[in-house]
């Protein structure tokens, strides 16, 4: 026993020594505000993996590019963790200077005066920055007419498809299906081919999707011309889930499953199925491209805009959709950055300087090309960097085609709760396989009950 205790003690002393040594090498857990004469700006984010590497690379470049500020990047792991940490830090008055956040949180921050209004910072700039932001992203970050957060890493869902399978069944490997109806045809061909051809894996499906996928459902609702949430005549918000568009959206998925064209999995199963060559097409965020490129080795994959719905006269209730046009409506995902009001004007100025730099035309374009996130500025979209990259890599083009069709989810604090509720109904719909109207009506009823008490 004594030997064991001595060994433990030795181990402890050794570890403490190594920690002290490592702290010296890495400048330690800096609580200081000034590093080497520069004002330190603490930036909390959730960018890990290959995307995080790109971001840290850009941050290093920023730190070298000027002598007033030093941005310290702190990775919090996941968005979920980040949100929890930010909320906790605000309670403790230990908030970072900048962080990534969803819009639903931004609203809370505004209410409690925790973040800086960007309009005031933009006002002192000579350039008209607001006019250059992609309209849907600007709208997404504007609250009561004022810009409070800056779009940072916004992404769209796209269609990934297996070019080798397309070739096998005689489909053009350089383009994806344009409409949902066309996609069903593609799925039939691919599924049938694998069922009937000797020597092929009989378990290959045309389409892979995940159970209770709210994102996918909302995209479909938009494509059929529906609305997610709208203001009723009495000022009470109402969901559009009992409308024909939503019923069609759910029915589309159910029909594919019923016909045996699609395979449903949990969470990221569909993505893994695609990588493993078990399904020919999946819907996933464009950001997954970077990961797919690392993981897919046995076939070539293509990325196409999500197939849309060919609008018929009188269909749908979005004012901007016209009959005879393909509606490619998609829901944006990803986050924005907030600048926290920590009471130090120097830090706020530094935070703004960094945000401005990161989203400037060329840096924004580079960020977009290297990570596939949407560029924030119109000038980035038209920049040479983006043009060249799109020419070199056809798989990068889809988000730019979808840019004009982007919508965002309601920025309500109850929205996460609603999403969970929707997921339950969607899951039931594909397990029980009853008529789509039933689930849609029930979903609308439950969601409206929450919306009744929600405020903008």
């Amino acid at each position: 026993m004594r030997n064991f205790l001595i060994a433990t003690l030795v181990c402890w002393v050794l570890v403490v020594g190594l920690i002290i040594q490592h702290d010296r090498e890495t400048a330690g857990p800096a609580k200081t505000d000034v590093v080497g004469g520069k004002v330190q700006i603490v930036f909390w984010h959730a960018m890990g993996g290959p995307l995080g590497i790109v971001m840290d690379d850009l941050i290093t470049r920023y730190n070298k590019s000027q002598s007033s500020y030093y941005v310290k990047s702190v990775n919090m792991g996941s968005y979920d963790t980040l949100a929890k940490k930010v909320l906790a830090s605000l309670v403790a008055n230990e908030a970072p200077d900048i962080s990534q956040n969803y819009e639903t949180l931004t609203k809370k921050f505004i209410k409690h005066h925790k973040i800086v209004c960007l309009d005031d910072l933009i006002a002192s700039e000579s350039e008209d920055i607001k006019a250059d932001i992609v309209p849907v992203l600007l709208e997404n970050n504007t609250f009561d007419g004022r810009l409070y957060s800056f779009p940072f890493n916004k992404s769209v869902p796209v269609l990934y498809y297996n070019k080798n399978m397309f070739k096998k069944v005689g489909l053009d490997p350089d383009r994806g299906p344009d409409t949902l109806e066309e996609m069903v045809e593609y799925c039939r061909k691919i599924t049938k081919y694998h069922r009937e051809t000797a020597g092929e894996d009989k378990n290959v499906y045309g389409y892979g999707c995940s159970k209770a996928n709210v994102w996918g459902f909302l995209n479909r609702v938009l494509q059929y011309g529906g609305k997610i949430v709208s203001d009723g005549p009495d000022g009470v918000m109402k969901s559009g889930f009992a409308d024909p568009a939503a019923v069609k959206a759910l029915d589309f998925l159910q029909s594919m499953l019923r016909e045996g064209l699609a395979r449903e999995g949990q969470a990221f199963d569909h993505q893994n199925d695609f990588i493993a060559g078990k399904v020919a097409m999946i819907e996933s965020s464009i950001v997954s491209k970077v990961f797919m490129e690392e993981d897919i080795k046995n076939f070539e994959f293509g990325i196409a805009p999500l197939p849309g719905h060919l609008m018929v006269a009188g269909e749908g209730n979005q004012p901007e959709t016209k009959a005879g046009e393909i509606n490619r409506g998609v829901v944006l995902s990803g986050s924005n950055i907030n600048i926290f009001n920590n009471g130090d004007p120097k830090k706020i100025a530094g935070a703004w300087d960094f945000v401005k730099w990161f989203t400037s035309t060329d840096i924004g374009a580079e960020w977009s090309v290297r990570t596939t996130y949407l560029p924030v500025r119109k000038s980035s979209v038209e920049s040479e960097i983006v043009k060249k990259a799109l020419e070199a890599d056809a798989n990068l083009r889809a988000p730019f085609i979808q840019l004009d069709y982007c919508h965002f989810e309601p920025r309500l604090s109850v929205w996460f709760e609603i999403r969970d509720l929707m997921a339950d109904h969607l899951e039931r719909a594909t397990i029980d396989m009853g008529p789509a109207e039933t689930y849609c009506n029930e979903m609308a009823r439950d969601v409206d009950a929450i919306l009744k008490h929600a405020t903008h």
Partner: protein
Amino acid sequence: MFKFKHPDHVPVHTLLIIGSIFMLFPFIWMIATSFKSQDEILSTSKKIVLLPDLARPGFLNGAEEKARINRKNDEAAAWQAEQAKPAAERNQKIRAPFQWLDNYLFALRAQPFYRFFLNTIFVSITVTSVSLFFASLAAYAFAFFNFPFKNTMFMLMLGTMMLPQQALLIPNYIVLSKIGWVNSYLALIVPWFASAYAVFFLRQFFMQLPKDLFEAATIDGCSRFQFYYKVVLPLSIPSMVTLGIFSFLANWNSFVWPLIVTNDTNLRVIQVGLSYFSSEAGTKWGPLMAASTMTILPLVIGYFLAQKQFVESQATTGMKE
């Protein structure tokens, strides 16, 4: 014919062997996965392939095996051709073929795992030793002495065990932030110095020690503290060890608390580091399993090294009534 030395042990041992296979399977799977490439992990094959893709001639059928080897050779050739080019002209998409240690190297490079390990070891050892010391002192008092409100205090202390950790998370965090401990080692360590469970556990054990020992020692001139460290502690080594293992494992595996109270990468513990391999765009199973293997390795090695000590200490605690 083969003869069993103890035929009556056969059924029990068979059961135990089957049980241990069930228990070990996840670990074996984890270790096997840590040596596989992502496409092997997500392989469509219906066979359960435990071994990673090392040189395994004849494992697959002839044609498949040939195709596989060709593919490997092509990959290696493409990679080598790319390496010959000047860096600027290299095609970034052509990557080196998977080597069996790649997941480990990736995991080690992706995060400062070295520091995460140091932090976890430091926190676990400190918390375990200090909390054992405090708990044994408290349990000693509860077991051997009478003082006013003893039972009330004991009940109050037991009451804290009824509160779930989740309920304490926010109040604890706020207390720590008020005293300025958030984002420091103090926050990781100090709140765990007192453990009601440990006090309760040790008190129950101490109560079983005969009171005669205490009286005899007192007559021989032992002070209360001398009795504690000369008699009680040596007699309670088995229970202390058990408790120590529980406490060490709990600290080694703790995730939520370290996540909430630390912001700096240099203060992160290993479990938080593991969570980094799952992101919104999917999970990197290979590196995650490699990192998990590395995480449990010190525990396994530590246990085997210390096992002898534990068994020995248990064997020498018999006493005559």
